[in-house]
């Protein structure tokens, strides 16, 4: 008997493995691709080196006045000097610990909700949502238990941006869920009211809503009843955003199979129990990513309060760039603002993607 011994495999051609292989497959697979690569590389070369030069290599990091910026690049001294104003607005500097404490309480308080092993998460979450706003308002605004009053006109900077975003979503979510339920209702009058409300707010830009809440709301209210500027902006933001939340939630409600409604009805559950115990828990789970996305757009929209004269992060920076002592710092200021907004929005969008993967339990059919 003759035995066959195989010769060892030949190595793959040198041009198709390793760095060269990767380059050939991904960058130079055809003449058109090679051309594209060269063009893209040229673009990168055009943008990146000057940018790095400006933002890092030639930048001035330390100093106190504009005169310390001598090297011709970005003048980050400006940001560093005005950092307090960008974060807290005109909040008195000796009371800024109250803002910090509010933020830390939010982080510490909300942290358990992100621990998967946590028991009674719902109950804790509910308690947190009830207790925290009261504490936060007391800390930020003051006025009782020995805390000095800081009127909302002195709030500003990133803190105001976060307050508007947080109150906006907290107010818009319950209203939006009710509107979504109303839009899916069998009662024609309720449905018409909800559809009109939703379509109206979705059809107009937030800017006109803010204008409306700042110039028309005082006319609508009876004599002697008035809100401050921030409150008026918040009412506008909540009404506007609730319409968008309603549409997101409606998508979730529509994705729940009819059998679920029928099964709940067959169990003898009334409308509110059917919705509260069977439908909404499933629907909300489906729309969490959508709600996070709505929140991202709300967060970006908070910058519009600049139009009615509130000093959020963007407006604080805009004002600082018009300061005669720091003229010509517009680029640094806006780049910093963009960076802050970008970090928040990108972080949230990553979180939304992560949630989408985690919650995808194959309910769709």
């Amino acid at each position, binding site marked *: 008997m003759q035995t066959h011994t195989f010769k060892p495999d030949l190595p793959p051609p040198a041009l198709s493995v390793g760095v060269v292989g990767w380059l050939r497959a991904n960058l130079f697979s055809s003449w058109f691709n090679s051309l594209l690569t060269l063009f893209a590389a040229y673009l990168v070369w055009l943008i990146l080196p000057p940018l790095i030069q400006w933002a890092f290599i030639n930048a001035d990091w330390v100093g106190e006045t504009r005169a310390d910026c001598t090297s011709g690049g970005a003048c980050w001294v400006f940001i560093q000097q005005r950092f307090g104003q960008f974060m807290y607005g005109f909040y008195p500097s000796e009371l800024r610990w109250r803002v910090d404490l509010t933020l830390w309480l939010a982080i510490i308080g909300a942290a358990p909700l992100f621990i998967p092993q946590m028991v009674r998460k719902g109950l804790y979450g509910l308690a947190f949502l009830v207790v925290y706003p009261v504490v936060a308002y007391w800390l930020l605004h003051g006025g009782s238990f020995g805390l000095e009053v800081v009127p909302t006109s002195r709030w500003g900077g990133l803190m105001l941006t976060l307050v508007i975003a947080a109150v906006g979503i907290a107010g818009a979510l319950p209203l939006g869920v009710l509107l979504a339920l109303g839009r899916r209702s069998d009662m024609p009058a309720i449905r018409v009211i909800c559809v009109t409300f939703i379509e109206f707010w979705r059809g107009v830009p937030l800017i006109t809503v803010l*204008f409306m809440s700042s110039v028309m709301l005082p006319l609508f209210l009876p004599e002697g009843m008035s809100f401050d500027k921030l409150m008026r902006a918040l009412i506008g933001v909540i009404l506007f955003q609730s319409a968008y939340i309603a549409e997101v939630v409606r998508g979730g409600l529509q994705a729940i199979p009819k059998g679920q409604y029928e099964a709940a009805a067959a169990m003898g559950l009334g409308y509110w129990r059917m919705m509260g115990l069977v439908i909404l828990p499933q629907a909300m789970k489906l729309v969490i990513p959508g709600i996070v996305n709505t929140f991202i757009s709300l967060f970006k929209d908070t910058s519009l309060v600049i139009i009615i004269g509130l000093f959020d992060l963007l407006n604080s920076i805009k004002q600082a760039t018009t300061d005669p002592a720091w003229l010509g710092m517009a680029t640094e200021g806006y780049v910093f603002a963009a960076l802050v907004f970008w970090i928040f929005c990108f972080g949230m969008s990553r979180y939304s993607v992560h949630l989408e993967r985690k919650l995808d339990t194959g309910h769709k059919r």
Partner: protein
Amino acid sequence: MQTTANTSRPGGSVWTDPKVRAWVFQIIAVIAIVALGWFLFDNTQTNLEKRGITSGFSFLNNSAGFGIAQHLIDYTESDSYGRVFLVGLLNTLLVSVIGIVLATLLGFLLGVARLSPNWLVRKLATVYIEIFRNIPPLLQILFWYFAVMLTLPGPRQSHAVLESFFLNSRGLYMPAPVPTDAFSVFLGAVVVAIIGSILFARWSRARFEATGKLFPISLGVIPLLIVLPALAVLIAGNPVSWSVPELTGFNFRGGWVLIPELMALTLALTIYTAAFIAENVRSGIQAVNHGQTEAARSLGLPGGKTLRLVIIPQAMRVIIPPLTSQYLNLAKNSSLAAGIGYPDMVSLFAGTVLNQTGQAIEVIAITMSVYLAISISISMLMNWYNKRIALIER
């Protein structure tokens, strides 16, 4: 609500009858809405009386008395507020239309680049999208306006291209075509060429369907579109003369000018919206099953036709609905013009006119209804298009 409302139970009390309950709830809701409306109306009446504001739209006939930096129709300071409204509306529409066209082009390009087999191009598109869709549009507008446009050199040191395009802190100046006597002849030739092309395309298609013989449409259309207008130019002379901007004193005269507000707004809105459109395009293309490409190839369709006849029509079905809402967003975001003082609907009407007249309710109502009308017309147009290309199932 889905199922309970239709079952009436004989024998129970009236209150447990779902139909009765539904009626009661609806009546309560309507009464509450009407009462709220009356409450607001009543308050407004009292407040207006107290402030001595007469409501009504007669203020639209009053003279405005302020100048506007950019007007597409004739406007002088003595014109009425009604005219201001028209100017603002046209400026809003101008930005929206330019923005939509540019954002669509850039967005489709980026969406395709995001799926490119080329690693570098793919990554660049991703970086672009992730950067620009996560920065608030208002911030981008302010950046382009305050940090870029206003820091450009003055008119005397402006960047010049070919001695006819000038970019400076007052805007982009470019040559404007001025129609000459020969323009009508030229226009006529173009119209004839277009009609001829349409007829030719129809004939070519009819022949293809009757005999199966392919006659490339471009072979007939392109000469037609080039030769006829060229003949018109040869016979009647140049249809347009160019009015080139010239530096006189401290500023340019002649030609067209794009004011920096318009450029900043268009740039920011285009860049911002294109990032979203790119994502819609990417998901639309990815939604088309790869089997479709393979099936088209196995039928013998070449690459270009596969794309044009098989992939794009199916991808468009997925792309159109989110694209519609991006267009709507862009039109609504154009109102951010108020942040840099571009004379659009909001900054002219809800800003200046409101401050001058104090007619808050009328002005805001007009502004909001304009945006509602724009939103409704865009969504109706896109719904019509969507219905046309929608999948027709059994």
